[in-house]
């Protein structure tokens, strides 16, 4: 049953990604519609999957790498579809959709069958930590896609080369990046606080120099600096680059959490 779901949503992501790329390279409106329909269908399917998983395994399901990856894919696609109502940026879809495809595919690959968390983690703090933290990750992922488009557009403008298709304006992208980073930062902050409370509840200490903690705090500092530096003129290309660096830190921290570094207090 779950396997069928996986195959189906993977297929839909693939169709949506191909259609998005088709739309931005040929400009065909039909391709855009196909992409949105396929993506919405994949999202609906994943929503069903997430609900099913939560109801069968409970909140503990939020702890495995497999679940984290599919949760991320689901959140990112949901955010993009939400954004789509306000600002239809097809080129962003062409990045978000392959990302969702890769996340879903890797979530399948890392599926180990062990779906439960250590019992000590299964407290009320777990959802309070996972929900804001992952929403924050998803928003940062979206910001990174926006940043990539920004860097592409800025490079084209500097080099005086024009692409076959028109990208959104620098101002639009920079503004969107700023909003994403601000919202992501707020949620991520909550996630870090509740995360340390969770650590306290589970192991009796707020802070234990684990890679996930160190990297998260580094990323947090970087994003805090990024938001501050905007007022002294660090925007545009620098902001886009830093957004990507911060996201890279988060990706590494998420992996370190799950591949069970020697410390051995991994979730998965």
């Amino acid at each position, binding site marked *: 049953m779950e396997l069928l779901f996986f195959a189906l949503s993977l297929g839909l992501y693939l169709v949506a990604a191909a259609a998005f790329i088709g739309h931005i390279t*040929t*400009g*065909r*409106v*039909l391709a855009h519609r196909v992409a949105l329909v396929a993506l919405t269908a994949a999202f609906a399917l994943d929503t069903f999957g997430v609900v099913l998983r939560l109801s069968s395994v409970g909140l503990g399901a939020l702890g495995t790498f497999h679940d984290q990856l599919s949760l991320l894919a689901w959140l990112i696609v949901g955010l993009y579809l939400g954004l789509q109502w306000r600002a239809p940026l097809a080129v962003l879809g062409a990045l978000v959709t392959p990302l969702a495809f890769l996340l879903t595919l890797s979530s399948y690959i890392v599926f180990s069958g062990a779906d439960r968390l250590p019992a000590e983690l299964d407290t009320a703090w777990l959802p309070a930590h996972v929900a804001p933290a992952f929403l924050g990750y998803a928003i940062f992922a979206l910001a990174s896609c926006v940043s990539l488009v920004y860097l592409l*557009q800025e490079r084209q*403008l*500097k080099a*005086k080369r*024009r692409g*076959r298709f*028109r*990208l959104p*304006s*620098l*101002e*639009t992208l920079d*503004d969107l990046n700023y909003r994403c980073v601000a919202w992501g930062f707020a949620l991520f902050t909550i996630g870090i606080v509740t995360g340390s409370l969770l650590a306290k509840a589970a192991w009796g200490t707020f802070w234990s120099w684990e890679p996930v903690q160190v990297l998260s705090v580094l990323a947090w500092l970087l994003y805090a600096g990024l938001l501050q530096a905007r*007022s*002294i*003129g*660090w*925007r*545009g*290309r*620098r902001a886009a680059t830093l957004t990507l660096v911060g996201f890279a830190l988060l990706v590494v921290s998420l992996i370190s959490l799950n591949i069970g570094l020697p410390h051995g207090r991994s979730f998965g």
Partner: protein
Amino acid sequence: MNQPDVLIVGLSHRTASLDVREAVAFADDQIDDVNRQLRALDGVDEAAVVCTCNRVEVVSSTREGPQVAERIAAFLRRADSGPGADLAPHLYQYWGRDAVRHLFRVASSLDSMVVGEPQILGQLKQFYTRAAGVGTTGAVLHRWFHKAFSVAKRVRTETGIAGRAVSVSSAAVELATDIFDHLAGKTAMLIGTGKMGALAARHLMANGVGNLIATNRTFERAVDVAREFKATPVPFEQFPKYLPMADIVIGSAAAGEFVLGEAQVQEALRERKGRPMFCIDLSVPRSFDPRINALDNVYLYDMDDLSKVAADNLGERAREAEKAETIVVEEVESFYRWLGHLEVVPTIVALRDKVEAIRRGELQKTLNQLKDLGPRERELLDVMTTAIVNKILHAPIARLKQQDRRAETFYLDAARRLFDLEEPDES
């Protein structure tokens, strides 16, 4: 009964020079009369004249042959007031698919002098409305024109035929919208009084740029420019002070030295807190230091860069036009199929065939069960069912055969739907 066909007779910038087109063109207040006279021509079922500075064309439908085109041509010749001008070499006529394709190409601006220019669609709509207003159009032209409008819309949304700027100053506007979200509320600064600079400023203001600051070495000239553009003049020595306000800086000074340097822009950027600047250097030789482009958040384009963008875009338009032609071909087929289905006879035949097939089938079923019937009874049953079918079909078929064009399409559509006859493709 002849099948309705479509016909376009006319001339355009491709076949006739401006003086010929001027001689044939109708004045605006003549259009209604011209439409009525065209409709009154023998064999013309529906007619609408289209008359722009680049073309004079009569769009019509008829059930007769080439002589109708001759009559329309003669009508246009009569309208030609030039002494002894011979229109024959300039006139073209398109029939059937070619006519459908021609109107679709005109609407999509593929036949325009500047391919992709947007005015023609509005003009077509206007001329169609005029003709519809005096009742010289019917089902065929109604459908044909509206299909042309939707083809044009499809071409516009699915190809970049009108999407790219093909002149230096519109390229500047296009690049500005690649940098800025929208131009409304943005401020531009014009340094110098050259023609190209003024043109670019005009384009930018037409696209929403709200404020213009003008400066020049000779302050009086800056004041002149400022008056023309409702801009704010500032003395040349003071322009760096105003530079941070400028989102767009246009250079149009015959200087021989750089009037805008790297340090000045860097200073302005600091005050702008990194908000981007677009510098357009339209002077030859250049008046902005090219090193400005290396600064973060500043984009400097000179005359060569802009010409290259415009030339690239022109090439892009040509490629997009090919895509548009494919769309037109698809749509021509779909429209032409519909036109073919306008013919009444095939519908009636299909209707009769269908009902007859039902009658035979049901009769056979009944006869199979009544094996002991004699030949006479069998024949009577056959006659009776035939009579029922004919009586039922009589009124609908009579209605379908009516000559009124508008009603005819309606009933044909209705008959096809009600009796589930093979649906014409009307996408």
